[in-house]
């Protein structure tokens, strides 16, 4: 019996202690008409057979192609020490640290994670993580709605459409209005965003770099938000944050991010982690788990879950959020990843991606009919207008073993010819040369 230790003799003796004759007698309280109509599942298999089956399924996927696919989710090298350390089963097989004395490892790691996130974004504090970048964005918006008691959100259209779709789903029952400010040629319109903030607005939500890779300074937008009593919320790409003006310096109230790029495999979409940070005055609005530093009976430093009076297990329907756990293991991976890279490693990753994206922009715009979508500054991702429908070109190039990027037309009608191309340290100049050659062939 896989994973069940009982011998037949132990089973008999334990049933006798309980005072029943058979295992099925333990379920006497389930009335006969509530029993399963059927339970038609295959027989169990050996570990070897199951592993072989998954090896076969994994081989049906093709993750190994040369790829410039990003759109908010990036392939970065993960130092092997991240797997080795986060894979230690004392971390892996623990639960939420309800008993702090025997969970100092997890608790201190979360405290360090909160510190790392706050320092990266130059915000005052952070929580222990939420599910992903999209839920972080939604929970940030809810912080603003609670604090301002207002019900309108102003959202830049150049915020990742994946997260805007999630925001719409999560807000569906809440009688909130979401006002989307259209982008222009992939550029966010700061003046229109500022102008849209009024006394009904709880928050203005932007992204840097935006979905099209464009880098901007939103300090003016956040100043307009503050003047009108609204929150400024920004979503960032944590790797580029190593070199970009920070949310803290721009005056954001809440900064969020998808933390996948910090030590999480792409893994077909999860598990990843949502980073959430804020200014000190909003700490009690911050949802989810938070770890605080304190002392024990002998005055030694230690860590505990804190500010729990905001949470669902105490406040029930009045909690700051329904979030019960965090992405603890993913947060641990991010912390280890950042500790191994250090500031220099993270800066190098950012610069490497940016340099390659510039190289790619140069090589591809040398092809006939290919031009940059705009002349705005960009990070490691850049949008280009092609002389043909981008979907078709992407499909054609995939047949040649290369994914040139993401066609943005499906989210932005009228931009069917636009390709979004991302670079990380997983790419090389050589790959870009080959891409330019193949694309040139097809145009």
């Amino acid at each position, binding site marked *: 019996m*896989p994973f069940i230790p009982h011998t037949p003799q*132990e089973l008999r003796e334990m049933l006798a*202690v*309980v005072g029943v004759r058979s295992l099925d007698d*333990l379920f006497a*309280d389930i*009335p006969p008409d509530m029993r*399963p*109509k059927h339970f038609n*599942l*295959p027989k*169990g*298999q050996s570990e070897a057979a199951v*592993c072989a089956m*998954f090896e076969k399924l994994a081989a049906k*996927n*093709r*993750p190994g192609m040369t*790829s410039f*696919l990003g759109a908010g989710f990036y392939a970065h*090298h993960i130092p092997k020490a991240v*797997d080795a*350390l986060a894979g230690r089963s004392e*971390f*892996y*097989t623990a639960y*939420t640290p*309800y008993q702090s004395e*025997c*969970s*100092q490892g*997890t608790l201190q790691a979360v405290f*360090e994670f909160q*510190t790392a996130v706050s320092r990266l974004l130059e915000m005052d504090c952070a929580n222990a993580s939420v599910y992903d970048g*999209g839920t972080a964005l939604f929970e940030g918006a809810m912080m603003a709605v609670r604090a301002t008691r207002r019900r309108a959100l102003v959202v830049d259209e150049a915020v990742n459409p*994946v997260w805007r779709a999630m925001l719409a789903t999560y807000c569906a029952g*809440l009688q909130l209005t979401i006002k989307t400010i259209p982008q222009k040629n992939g550029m966010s319109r700061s003046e229109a965003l500022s102008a849209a903030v009024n006394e009904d607005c709880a928050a203005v939500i932007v992204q840097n770099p935006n979905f099209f890779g464009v880098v901007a300074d939103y300090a003016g937008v956040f100043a307009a938000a503050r003047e009108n009593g609204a929150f400024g919320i920004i979503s960032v790409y944590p790797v580029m*944050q190593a*070199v*970009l*003006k920070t949310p803290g310096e721009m005056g954001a109230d809440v900064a969020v991010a998808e933390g996948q790029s910090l030590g999480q495999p*792409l893994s*077909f*979409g*999860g598990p990843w982690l949502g980073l959430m940070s804020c200014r000190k005055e909003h700490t009690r609005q911050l949802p989810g788990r938070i770890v605080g530093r304190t002392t*024990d009976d*002998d005055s030694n430093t230690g860590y*505990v879950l*804190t500010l729990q009076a905001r949470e669902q*297990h105490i406040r029930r329907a009045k909690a700051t959020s329904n979030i019960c*756990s965090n992405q603890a*293991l993913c947060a641990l991976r991010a912390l280890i990843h*950042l*500790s191994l*890279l*250090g*500031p220099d490693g993270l800066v190098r990753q950012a*610069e490497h991606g940016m340099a390659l994206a510039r190289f790619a922009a140069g090589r591809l715009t040398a092809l006939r009919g290919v031009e940059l979508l705009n002349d705005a500054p960009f990070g490691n991702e850049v949008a280009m207008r092609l002389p043909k429908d981008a*979907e078709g070109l992407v499909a054609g190039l995939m047949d040649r073993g290369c994914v040139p990027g*993401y066609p943005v037309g499906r989210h932005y009608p009228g931009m069917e010819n636009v390709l979004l191309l991302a670079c990380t340290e997983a790419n090389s100049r050589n790959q870009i040369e080959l891409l330019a050659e193949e694309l040139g062939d097809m145009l």
Partner: protein
Amino acid sequence: MKTIFAKSVPGRGACQVDSADAPAAAHMLPAGLLRIHPPLLPRCSELDVVRHFTGLSQRNYSVDANFYPLGSCTMKYSPKFTEYVASLPGFARLHPLLARLERGEACAQGALQCLYEAERWLCEITGMEAFTLQPMAGANGEFTGVSFMAAYHRAKGRKRAKILIPDSAHGTNPASAALAGFEIISIESRDGMIDPDVLSAVIAEHGDDVAGLMMTCPNTLGLMELHLPRIVAELHGADALLYYDGANMNAIMGKMRVGDAGFDVVHLNLHKTFATPHGGGGPGSGPVGVTARLAPFLPAPRVAVRENGSFYLDDNLPQSIGAMTPFYGNFGVVLKALAYMLRLGGDGLARVAEYAVLNANYLKKRLEDVLDVPFDKLCAHEFVASAPEGLRALDIAKALLERGFHAPTVYFPLIVRECLMAEPTETESRETLDAYVEALREIVAQGKADPRALAEAPRNLPVRRLDETAAARRMVLTEDMG
């Protein structure tokens, strides 16, 4: 232990990234867009980092090292081979957008098949018509499930604003319903059960405004709800829906299918029932199953199969509530759960419930002369007990830690005095259960003889009891707030 930031040494580094053949950011972007100071992250050697995190790991209790009978959380052994499965590069390196490109489906057939099969397994286990794997944790599943309930009533052209929740429910239930815009009506339990008369009265009063009821069964006292058929009839009589909180699925797999029993929505916690490790608090995964009438509302896209056997992502779902997740849920966690299900098979899954319930009843029986066990009947996979008169549940919990056992859940559910809620799970041996009983016997004897000694536990862990009040008042949440 010092933090990793305190161990940072200027000039040191782990050299994890090649020195890029790239100009500095300042040469690529205008100065006004750049950060002034580099982020104050640790500067450590690889060995510094390895020692630090190895040291931290040793300051944790875990299932692999300790008995962890945390009631309502199902901390069972998580098999190691599932980690191998999830780390196969064909899965781990797969970009989720690849499957969204024209002809991209062909590059992700294995992954799509895994999602499809996991849904089919969960449907058969629960007796539901359809499943979504999108929700990223149990509470996220609850939110998804109640969103279906809202969508169902909306599609019938009415707004029903209220959801009924027993007082014994997990705190996430009311929080999730509130987040979806519902008003909560709390239902008081009687003798640890939902009282169908109370329920009738509430439905009579609010009938046209009741969207549904959320319940946990077996409930948080570890007991089967005895009035289930009447509860189902009451709710369906009012065209309201029944939500099943699947946190306790480990108790009933193969013995009761919630779809057959009359429930309309169920969420499962893959990290509980299907043995995917919880990583100190996450990631989890909270798939939601529904009966046929709620299937049109599932999040988009859904994985479907063509006649030729190939898999595709179906976006043509006009009544879908939208997207709960950026892509297809916590895929890596789903893979582990699927591997676990395939390993155990149908018989194995039913055996899980049998031995989990056996272990709980054995432990309960053996503790009857040590703790106050309030309900003299069979329990499900967990049970509640009270600390004996004069002793505090918290002190008993800390004394267990001192003896190398993780404590049971304490002070939950709130409706039981000095509550200790234990869930041994099926993967623990009789020796472990017996050792735990002996430890509790000793602790209670010691506590009765000298309550002050008990209040000093634990004495042999990295820290003694921590001042939680000071933590909340002083609010030191980062190294820099000190």
